[in-house]
């Protein structure tokens, strides 16, 4: 059985996807997402992983009616720009109707199915955000 998507790539990223791991620069102090081995702001390689807060504020969003292939069942996709305090993240919004969304609402990270490998049947998971219900 062949696979369309790489399992090792998904496997390497799974902790970042599930636990919202970003990077913190020990030189300039900035926090960033996605994580990488060099600070995007001061280019220092002295960076460490950091758990990002799972609750943030929705800064903006767009509703996508023509998403890339592989996301048809989730259409329309709601793509949010979310403020997590020290950094921002772009993610799908889930468990929410278009009427319930407005800029400024509190949203929280949840683990959800992102896509399915058509031929191998593997399900890839990742973060999405929903309006806060777990206070």
């Amino acid at each position, binding site marked *: 059985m062949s696979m369309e998507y790489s399992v090792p*790539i998904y496997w390497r*990223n799974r902790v970042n996807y599930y636990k919202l791991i970003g990077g913190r620069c020990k030189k300039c102090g900035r926090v*960033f*997402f*996605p994580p990488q081995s060099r600070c*995007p*702001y001061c280019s220092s390689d002295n960076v460490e992983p950091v758990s990002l807060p799972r609750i943030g504020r929705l800064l*903006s*969003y*767009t*509703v*996508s*009616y*023509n*998403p*890339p*292939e*592989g*996301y*048809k069942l*989730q259409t329309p*996709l709601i*793509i949010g*720009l979310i403020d997590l305090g020290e*950094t*921002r*993240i*772009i*993610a*799908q919004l889930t468990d929410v109707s278009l009427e319930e969304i407005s800029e400024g609402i509190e949203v929280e990270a949840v683990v959800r199915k*992102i*896509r399915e490998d058509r031929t191998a049947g593997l399900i*890839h998971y*990742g973060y999405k955000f929903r309006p806060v219900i777990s206070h």
Partner: protein
Amino acid sequence: MGVYVKSYGMTKLGRSYNKSLYDLVFDALSDMEGLDKPDMIIVSTVFTAATIGQLDIASKITEIAGFKGVPAIRVETGETSGHNSVLMAFRLLAGGMYDNILVIGAEKMTEFVAARMYKEISKVFDSEYESYMGVGHASLHALAMKEYMKRYGKTHKELAYWPALMHKNAADNPYAALRFPVDQDSVVKANVISDPITLLDSYPLVDGAGALLLTRSPNSALAEVKYAYSSTDVKPVTHKEDLLDLPAARRVYSKIKNENGLDLSVDLYDVTDQFTITPYLILESIGIAERGKSVDMANQGVFDRDGEIPINVTGGLKARGHPFGATGVYQIAELSGILSGTFQIQIPETKEAMIIGVNGLGSNASGILLGRR
């Protein structure tokens, strides 16, 4: 020691279901005048590994071109591939490595359904954290467009001056894909792709091939390539300091301006405008317009063909079409034609023209300054 555009060839952009990528390259080269064997071929294409499944495509294209044996490489930097191909050719020629380089840009974007292409196109952004999540080309530009409208209090209809102008400009470009007029209201009311971006705020998926013969000899050349410069910026959009700022484009523009002692503006510009928001971000990032003012300038007609600073006079990516790897080649070919008086569209008194290409929301930027021969 100068570098010159000796000749160009292009195919009409559109859906060429009956022609292969190689047929289009063949047609573009047949459209050229005085094409002798070059010292090198640089092929610009973004999606061919995915769309037609060919690697080392530069050698196959070289065979089709009839120049078997000539060294050939492919350049890929997303939406700036064509610009950076010309930049590489410019450097090699200016450095005296070669006398003639043929740059060929080619893309086939209708071999699959649109959703499949949108998946490929989304990879011009960060693949593992943006494309993976289903975030496409249009959605990231939509977030930028929303932010712009909110920050500067502009309406979609005001922004829509740009696509309406591009359709008007493309009407007499024989190579353009969308030659019908649209008005600002119809842009706003068209089908939504990723709100606020509608179908008419967006570029069409097209097939096409374009070619430029660059040379060190000014004899019977069309235009001079006076300078070329390129710069990069962060890849993930969330690493950007400001969603609306394109620092790489600013570095490119400043460098070209400073190295050539230019005043604030050259006679003619051609900038990336695959979505309505993009040209405004470029013009404000490089300083042609103040922050938040470019939309007003557009609505006042400043960027019209007969305006103070004409931009994208041949229809832009928006209406000419955006065959990714070939786009920069089309822009440079058309402006070379305008500078030499050989293109179907003429802008009198044009002495210098600048092309600024941007990938995505600014991860790569590349600029070319052209002058009269």
